[in-house]
Protein backbone atom coordinates (compact mmCIF):
# COMPACT_ATOMS: atom_id res chain seq x y z
CA UNK A 1 0.00 0.00 0.00
CA UNK A 2 1.48 3.31 -1.08
CA UNK A 3 1.16 5.85 1.69
CA UNK A 4 0.90 8.92 -0.45
CA UNK A 5 -2.17 11.04 -1.12
CA UNK A 6 -3.64 10.80 -4.62
CA UNK A 7 -5.61 13.25 -6.75
CA UNK A 8 -8.94 12.27 -5.14
CA UNK A 9 -7.60 12.87 -1.63
CA UNK A 10 -6.33 16.32 -2.58
CA UNK A 11 -9.72 17.27 -4.07
CA UNK A 12 -11.39 16.03 -0.88
CA UNK A 13 -9.08 18.10 1.33
CA UNK A 14 -9.48 21.29 -0.74
CA UNK A 15 -13.27 20.83 -0.91
CA UNK A 16 -13.53 20.29 2.86
CA UNK A 17 -11.47 23.39 3.63
CA UNK A 18 -13.57 25.53 1.27
CA UNK A 19 -16.90 24.33 2.74
CA UNK A 20 -15.68 24.74 6.34
CA UNK A 21 -14.24 28.22 5.82
CA UNK A 22 -17.36 29.30 3.90
CA UNK A 23 -19.62 28.26 6.78
CA UNK A 24 -17.33 29.90 9.35
CA UNK A 25 -17.53 33.17 7.41
CA UNK A 26 -21.33 32.86 7.07
CA UNK A 27 -21.75 32.19 10.80
CA UNK A 28 -19.54 35.17 11.65
CA UNK A 29 -21.40 37.49 9.29
CA UNK A 30 -24.99 36.49 10.00
CA UNK A 31 -25.20 34.50 13.23
CA UNK A 32 -22.65 36.08 15.58
CA UNK A 33 -23.89 39.61 14.88
CA UNK A 34 -23.97 42.35 17.50
CA UNK A 35 -22.94 42.42 21.12
CA UNK A 36 -23.64 39.73 23.68
CA UNK A 37 -25.87 40.97 26.47
CA UNK A 38 -26.45 37.85 28.49
CA UNK A 39 -25.91 34.16 28.91
CA UNK A 40 -28.34 31.24 28.86
CA UNK A 41 -27.55 27.92 30.50
CA UNK A 42 -29.40 24.97 29.02
CA UNK A 43 -29.47 21.52 30.54
CA UNK A 44 -30.93 18.45 28.85
CA UNK A 45 -32.62 20.53 26.17
CA UNK A 46 -34.27 22.94 28.60
CA UNK A 47 -33.39 26.45 29.69
CA UNK A 48 -32.07 26.18 33.24
CA UNK A 49 -30.92 29.68 34.07
CA UNK A 50 -30.30 32.92 32.27
CA UNK A 51 -28.33 35.97 33.31
CA UNK A 52 -28.09 39.44 31.90
CA UNK A 53 -24.55 40.86 31.84
CA UNK A 54 -25.58 44.31 33.06
CA UNK A 55 -26.96 42.76 36.26
CA UNK A 56 -23.81 40.78 36.95
CA UNK A 57 -20.50 42.06 38.32
CA UNK A 58 -17.55 42.28 35.93
CA UNK A 59 -16.28 38.93 37.10
CA UNK A 60 -18.53 36.15 38.28
CA UNK A 61 -18.19 32.42 38.78
CA UNK A 62 -21.28 30.25 38.53
CA UNK A 63 -21.50 26.68 39.69
CA UNK A 64 -24.20 24.68 37.97
CA UNK A 65 -25.11 21.39 39.63
CA UNK A 66 -27.40 18.77 38.15
CA UNK A 67 -28.08 15.07 38.64
CA UNK A 68 -25.26 14.24 36.23
CA UNK A 69 -22.53 16.52 37.49
CA UNK A 70 -21.27 20.05 37.82
CA UNK A 71 -19.87 22.72 35.52
CA UNK A 72 -18.04 25.79 36.74
CA UNK A 73 -18.69 28.77 34.49
CA UNK A 74 -16.63 31.92 34.54
CA UNK A 75 -17.96 35.22 33.27
CA UNK A 76 -15.38 37.94 32.82
CA UNK A 77 -15.87 41.16 30.89
CA UNK A 78 -18.91 39.73 29.06
CA UNK A 79 -16.88 36.72 27.96
CA UNK A 80 -17.91 33.27 29.09
CA UNK A 81 -15.88 30.13 29.55
CA UNK A 82 -16.10 26.83 31.42
CA UNK A 83 -13.25 26.50 33.90
CA UNK A 84 -14.00 23.09 35.35
CA UNK A 85 -16.48 20.25 35.01
CA UNK A 86 -17.18 16.86 36.53
CA UNK A 87 -16.87 14.92 33.28
CA UNK A 88 -13.88 12.89 32.18
CA UNK A 89 -12.92 14.41 28.87
CA UNK A 90 -13.16 18.13 29.76
CA UNK A 91 -13.07 19.14 26.11
CA UNK A 92 -15.25 22.18 26.79
CA UNK A 93 -12.85 23.63 29.38
CA UNK A 94 -10.95 26.79 28.52
CA UNK A 95 -12.82 27.66 25.32
CA UNK A 96 -14.05 31.26 25.53
CA UNK A 97 -17.08 32.76 23.79
CA UNK A 98 -18.00 36.42 23.46
CA UNK A 99 -20.53 36.87 20.64
CA UNK A 100 -24.30 36.29 20.53
CA UNK A 101 -25.42 32.79 19.47
CA UNK A 102 -22.03 31.29 20.19
CA UNK A 103 -22.28 28.12 22.27
CA UNK A 104 -20.16 25.97 24.52
CA UNK A 105 -21.33 22.37 24.52
CA UNK A 106 -20.58 19.84 27.23
CA UNK A 107 -21.70 16.50 25.86
CA UNK A 108 -21.34 14.23 28.93
CA UNK A 109 -23.11 16.68 31.26
CA UNK A 110 -25.80 17.61 28.69
CA UNK A 111 -24.93 21.28 29.02
CA UNK A 112 -25.20 24.01 26.45
CA UNK A 113 -24.10 27.52 27.33
CA UNK A 114 -25.31 30.09 24.83
CA UNK A 115 -24.75 33.81 24.59
CA UNK A 116 -27.69 36.01 23.72
CA UNK A 117 -27.59 39.45 22.18
CA UNK A 118 -29.97 42.33 21.79
CA UNK A 119 -31.77 41.82 18.51
CA UNK A 120 -32.50 44.82 16.31
CA UNK A 121 -36.24 44.53 16.99
CA UNK A 122 -35.63 44.88 20.73
CA UNK A 123 -33.48 47.96 20.41
CA UNK A 124 -36.12 49.67 18.26
CA UNK A 125 -39.02 48.88 20.60
CA UNK A 126 -37.08 50.18 23.60
Amino acid at each position, binding site marked *: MALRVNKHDII*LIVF*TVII*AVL*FMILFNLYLYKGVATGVEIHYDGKLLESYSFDKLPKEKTLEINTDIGYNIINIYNNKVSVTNSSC*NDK*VCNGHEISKPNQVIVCLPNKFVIKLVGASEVDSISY
Partner: protein
Amino acid sequence: MKNKNVVLGFMVAVAIVLQVLESSIPVPLPIPGGKIGLANIVALIVLTKFGGKEAVVVTLLRAILGSLLHGGFITMIYSVTGGLFSTVTAIWLLKRSKYTIIGIGIISALMHNLAQVIVAIILMNNIYIVTYYPVLMLVSLPCGALTGYVSGLVLNKLK
Protein backbone atom coordinates in the same frame (compact mmCIF):
# COMPACT_ATOMS: atom_id res chain seq x y z
CA MET B 1 -7.12 -17.23 9.59
CA LYS B 2 -7.28 -19.94 12.24
CA ASN B 3 -7.24 -17.87 15.39
CA LYS B 4 -9.30 -15.01 13.97
CA ASN B 5 -11.36 -14.47 17.12
CA VAL B 6 -8.23 -14.22 19.23
CA VAL B 7 -6.80 -11.56 16.94
CA LEU B 8 -10.12 -9.65 16.86
CA GLY B 9 -10.33 -9.77 20.67
CA PHE B 10 -6.82 -8.41 20.81
CA MET B 11 -7.83 -5.65 18.39
CA VAL B 12 -10.77 -4.68 20.63
CA ALA B 13 -8.36 -4.47 23.58
CA VAL B 14 -5.93 -2.27 21.65
CA ALA B 15 -8.77 -0.01 20.52
CA ILE B 16 -10.09 0.37 24.08
CA VAL B 17 -6.62 1.28 25.34
CA LEU B 18 -6.28 3.88 22.56
CA GLN B 19 -9.71 5.36 23.30
CA VAL B 20 -9.15 5.60 27.06
CA LEU B 21 -5.60 6.88 26.60
CA GLU B 22 -6.81 9.58 24.25
CA SER B 23 -9.45 10.90 26.62
CA SER B 24 -7.09 10.72 29.62
CA ILE B 25 -4.26 12.68 28.03
CA PRO B 26 -5.15 16.24 27.04
CA VAL B 27 -4.54 16.60 23.33
CA PRO B 28 -3.10 19.99 22.43
CA LEU B 29 -5.84 20.87 19.96
CA PRO B 30 -6.96 24.48 20.19
CA ILE B 31 -10.65 23.74 19.73
CA PRO B 32 -13.45 22.30 21.82
CA GLY B 33 -14.33 18.69 21.16
CA GLY B 34 -11.07 18.03 19.41
CA LYS B 35 -9.88 14.44 19.53
CA ILE B 36 -7.57 12.62 17.16
CA GLY B 37 -9.68 9.45 16.94
CA LEU B 38 -6.88 6.97 17.55
CA ALA B 39 -9.34 4.09 17.96
CA ASN B 40 -10.32 4.52 14.32
CA ILE B 41 -6.83 3.22 13.40
CA VAL B 42 -7.88 -0.19 14.70
CA ALA B 43 -11.22 -0.05 12.84
CA LEU B 44 -9.43 0.67 9.54
CA ILE B 45 -6.92 -2.14 10.10
CA VAL B 46 -9.62 -4.70 10.96
CA LEU B 47 -11.71 -3.53 8.02
CA THR B 48 -8.86 -4.03 5.55
CA LYS B 49 -7.53 -7.28 7.04
CA PHE B 50 -10.77 -9.04 7.94
CA GLY B 51 -13.79 -7.26 6.47
CA GLY B 52 -16.73 -5.01 7.18
CA LYS B 53 -18.67 -7.22 9.58
CA GLU B 54 -15.62 -7.73 11.77
CA ALA B 55 -14.87 -4.00 11.76
CA VAL B 56 -18.40 -3.13 12.89
CA VAL B 57 -18.25 -5.69 15.73
CA VAL B 58 -14.84 -4.46 16.91
CA THR B 59 -15.98 -0.82 16.75
CA LEU B 60 -19.19 -1.55 18.69
CA LEU B 61 -17.38 -3.52 21.41
CA ARG B 62 -14.69 -0.86 21.65
CA ALA B 63 -17.22 1.97 21.95
CA ILE B 64 -19.38 0.21 24.57
CA LEU B 65 -16.56 -1.19 26.73
CA GLY B 66 -14.37 1.89 26.38
CA SER B 67 -17.20 4.18 27.51
CA LEU B 68 -17.96 1.92 30.47
CA LEU B 69 -14.32 2.12 31.53
CA HIS B 70 -13.94 5.83 30.97
CA GLY B 71 -16.93 8.03 30.45
CA GLY B 72 -20.46 6.82 31.08
CA PHE B 73 -23.78 6.19 29.46
CA ILE B 74 -24.00 9.49 27.60
CA THR B 75 -20.43 9.15 26.33
CA MET B 76 -21.46 5.70 25.10
CA ILE B 77 -24.30 7.07 22.96
CA TYR B 78 -21.91 9.45 21.20
CA SER B 79 -19.14 6.89 20.96
CA VAL B 80 -21.36 4.18 19.45
CA THR B 81 -23.09 6.41 16.89
CA GLY B 82 -19.86 8.14 15.86
CA GLY B 83 -17.98 4.85 15.62
CA LEU B 84 -20.72 3.10 13.65
CA PHE B 85 -21.19 6.00 11.24
CA SER B 86 -17.49 6.28 10.46
CA THR B 87 -16.87 2.54 10.19
CA VAL B 88 -19.83 1.95 7.85
CA THR B 89 -18.65 4.87 5.70
CA ALA B 90 -15.13 3.42 5.58
CA ILE B 91 -16.50 0.00 4.55
CA TRP B 92 -18.35 1.57 1.64
CA LEU B 93 -15.39 3.76 0.63
CA LEU B 94 -12.90 0.89 0.69
CA LYS B 95 -15.08 -1.06 -1.74
CA ARG B 96 -16.03 1.59 -4.22
CA SER B 97 -13.92 4.71 -4.10
CA LYS B 98 -10.54 5.76 -5.38
CA TYR B 99 -9.43 7.39 -2.13
CA THR B 100 -6.27 6.11 -0.47
CA ILE B 101 -6.34 4.97 3.16
CA ILE B 102 -5.47 8.58 4.06
CA GLY B 103 -8.55 9.92 2.26
CA ILE B 104 -10.69 7.20 3.85
CA GLY B 105 -9.34 8.19 7.28
CA ILE B 106 -10.33 11.80 6.62
CA ILE B 107 -13.87 10.97 5.47
CA SER B 108 -14.27 8.61 8.45
CA ALA B 109 -13.31 11.44 10.79
CA LEU B 110 -15.71 13.84 9.03
CA MET B 111 -18.57 11.33 9.36
CA HIS B 112 -17.69 10.57 12.99
CA ASN B 113 -17.96 14.24 13.87
CA LEU B 114 -21.10 14.73 11.78
CA ALA B 115 -22.85 11.85 13.57
CA GLN B 116 -21.91 13.23 16.97
CA VAL B 117 -23.04 16.76 16.12
CA ILE B 118 -26.40 15.42 14.87
CA VAL B 119 -26.86 13.31 18.02
CA ALA B 120 -25.96 16.34 20.18
CA ILE B 121 -28.49 18.54 18.34
CA ILE B 122 -31.22 15.92 18.87
CA LEU B 123 -30.34 15.03 22.49
CA MET B 124 -29.96 18.62 23.65
CA ASN B 125 -32.61 20.07 21.39
CA ASN B 126 -30.34 22.92 20.32
CA ILE B 127 -29.63 23.68 16.67
CA TYR B 128 -26.81 26.11 17.50
CA ILE B 129 -24.54 23.13 18.18
CA VAL B 130 -24.21 22.91 14.39
CA THR B 131 -21.85 25.91 14.57
CA TYR B 132 -19.22 23.51 15.93
CA TYR B 133 -19.16 21.48 12.75
CA PRO B 134 -17.09 23.72 10.41
CA VAL B 135 -14.32 23.84 13.03
CA LEU B 136 -14.55 20.09 13.49
CA MET B 137 -14.33 19.66 9.71
CA LEU B 138 -10.96 21.41 9.68
CA VAL B 139 -9.78 19.33 12.65
CA SER B 140 -10.88 16.16 10.84
CA LEU B 141 -8.33 16.79 8.07
CA PRO B 142 -5.05 16.35 10.01
CA CYS B 143 -6.58 13.91 12.52
CA GLY B 144 -8.23 11.73 9.87
CA ALA B 145 -5.13 11.81 7.68
CA LEU B 146 -3.01 10.74 10.66
CA THR B 147 -5.26 7.79 11.58
CA GLY B 148 -5.39 6.72 7.92
CA TYR B 149 -1.63 7.02 7.55
CA VAL B 150 -0.89 5.04 10.71
CA SER B 151 -3.36 2.33 9.64
CA GLY B 152 -1.52 2.12 6.33
CA LEU B 153 1.85 1.83 8.09
CA VAL B 154 0.60 -1.03 10.27
CA LEU B 155 -1.09 -2.78 7.33
CA ASN B 156 2.15 -2.64 5.34
CA LYS B 157 4.01 -4.28 8.24
CA LEU B 158 1.35 -6.98 8.60
CA LYS B 159 1.77 -8.18 5.03
